């Protein structure tokens, strides 16, 4: 024990290095990860910066209604003569921020719950979490989200989130952890059997230390790889809410909301629907590249 004592700092560094080594290896080696990451950074940068410097405001009536795409208005204008380009980029902030926040919180909570359940010695605790997750996942994802939105109430509002978004956020978070918990539990159950965990137990390490220092680092690469794919699903779900009558309310721009507004004019002004959709698909494509590379990195 005396050899191990006093090595807190390096051990912490080593643990962090171990935790992210799979991720880092994948980033360093895979062209897919670099291309996907680069594209994603480009899209996020454009969504954050362009609306600040763009001459037209997101909700201002700047030109004739239904103007086709032009140099001044690259994505054309909508039924009220608003610039679709700046609305699309500003809308992307909501979609990307929500996806990032939801995925980060769900991934952290689910990983910890799953790792604790998977490494618990009490069989009932582990099984309770497993069955609860099974029951949550049995509901089709969107059905659960819609039901939860009804429970929270579409007009609930916390903090600066735009109207209609709070209920959706809460619904995402109530459901989000389950997938991660299932993955983390399965992974923790296999890690728990390894010799070094048994050794740590014999050495009398406290349970918490074993879980957080020795089991969690093995679980994290698996859940992080899934998190990127989850971000695509979250963004897709969020942008489809406008079609279901919940989520971000007009006039706040959001990809799904813009597409929903444009849907009525699909035959005369396709650009209102197609342009935000293409950016949504492009973001999803960047994330898929990233997920693919990370998964391959976590495998070896």
């Amino acid at each position, binding site marked *: 024990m005396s050899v191990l004592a006093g090595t807190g700092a390096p051990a912490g560094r080593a643990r962090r290095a171990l935790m992210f080594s799979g991720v880092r290896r994948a980033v360093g080696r895979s062209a897919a990860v670099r291309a996907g990451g680069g594209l994603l950074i480009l899209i996020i940068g454009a969504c954050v910066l362009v609306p600040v410097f763009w001459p037209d405001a997101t909700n201002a009536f700047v030109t004739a209604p239904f103007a086709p795409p032009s140099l001044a208005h690259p994505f054309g204008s909508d039924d009220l003569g608003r610039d679709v380009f700046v609305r699309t980029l500003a809308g992307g902030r909501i979609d990307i921020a929500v996806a990032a926040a939801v995925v980060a919180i769900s991934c952290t909570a689910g990983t910890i719950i799953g790792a604790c359940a998977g490494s618990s010695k009490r069989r009932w605790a582990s099984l309770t979490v497993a069955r609860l997750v099974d029951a949550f996942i049995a509901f*089709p994802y969107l*059905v659960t989200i*819609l039901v939860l939105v009804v429970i929270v109430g579409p007009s609930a509002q916390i903090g600066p989130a735009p109207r209609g978004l709070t209920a959706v956020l809460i619904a995402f978070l109530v459901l989000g952890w389950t997938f991660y918990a299932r993955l983390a539990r399965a992974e923790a159950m296999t890690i728990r059997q390894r010799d070094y965990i048994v050794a740590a137990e014999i050495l009398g390490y406290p349970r918490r230390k074993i879980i957080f220092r020795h089991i969690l680092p093995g679980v994290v690469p698996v859940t992080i790889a899934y998190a990127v794919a989850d971000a695509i699903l979250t963004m897709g779900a969020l942008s489809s809410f406008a079609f279901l009558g919940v989520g971000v309310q007009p006039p706040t721009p959001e990809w799904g909301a813009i597409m929903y507004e444009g*849907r009525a004019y*699909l*035959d005369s002004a396709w650009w209102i629907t*197609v342009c935000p959709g293409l950016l949504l698909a492009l973001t999803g494509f960047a994330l*898929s590249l990233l997920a693919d590379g990370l998964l391959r990195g976590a495998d070896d």
Partner: protein
Amino acid sequence: MTDVLQAVLIMVLVAVLVFLIVRLIPGDPAQQVLGQKATPRAVAALRHQLGLDRSLPAQLWSYFTGLLHGRMGSSLVEQGVTVSSLVLSGLGVTLTVVAATVVLSVAAGVPAGLWSVLSRLPGLDVGVRGLSVVLLASPPFFVGLLLILVFSLELHALPAGGWGAHAAADARYLLLPAVALSCYLGPVIVRATRQSALAAARQPFVEATLARGISPRRVVLAHILPNSLLPLITLVGLNIGWLISGAVVVEAVFALPGIGQVLVQAVSELDYTVIQGVAIVTALVVVLANLLADVAYTVVDPRIRHGR
């Protein structure tokens, strides 16, 4: 047998969750349905109709016995319409869309996956993989809108939405929604087929059959194809929940009278009994689909049947 027991356990948990969820609604559901101006008498009557005036265990008991008899109460908004009739009519349409999607995705995805692994054409594999990444990244509702734009508004070939009066007419209305939803399932199937075909092609028995002079085409059709079809049973079973989620949105885009539309309408009208019914029935469909996939797998694959 343990599979069945587990499925039953999950179904019970699902029913309890839905029961609790409706009781979790802040405030009084009856008051919310009727609005703030409702008379106390009307609220009390609705509470009685919902069974909210009884003790929680009594509510749970009558709820469960009702479920076992297939009774889920009647709609709070549309007088005299039972929840089960609403849910079942919607479910029929949704499951038709889902079934068409599965058929379409397997019919397109399996050949694409096999072809990309086995063909010697350079770039084909990369092309198929790239296409599946692009399709997977596009949400089904966006693909649906693009399909409407091209096939309905430009080419006038297929209807932009709605539902036929009889089965033969439905096929025309079914095609675009199923294609849109296949953009999610198809790539998943292509990936799985690629992986299992690669694994099967590396097995010693494939080399042995080739060494015995059997034509490569026969090896692919008689040995590699069945092996790559097996995992698809589980895959489709596991994806039924996602397909129903996707169908909910695609139905909204194509105005199909499926379970998604039933749910969306119930959500906008705060029709709690209908919401409860949709949640339970869709969850049961998912649990049953998973169970069926498990059972089908053991029936189809002799290695699992005899392996234990």
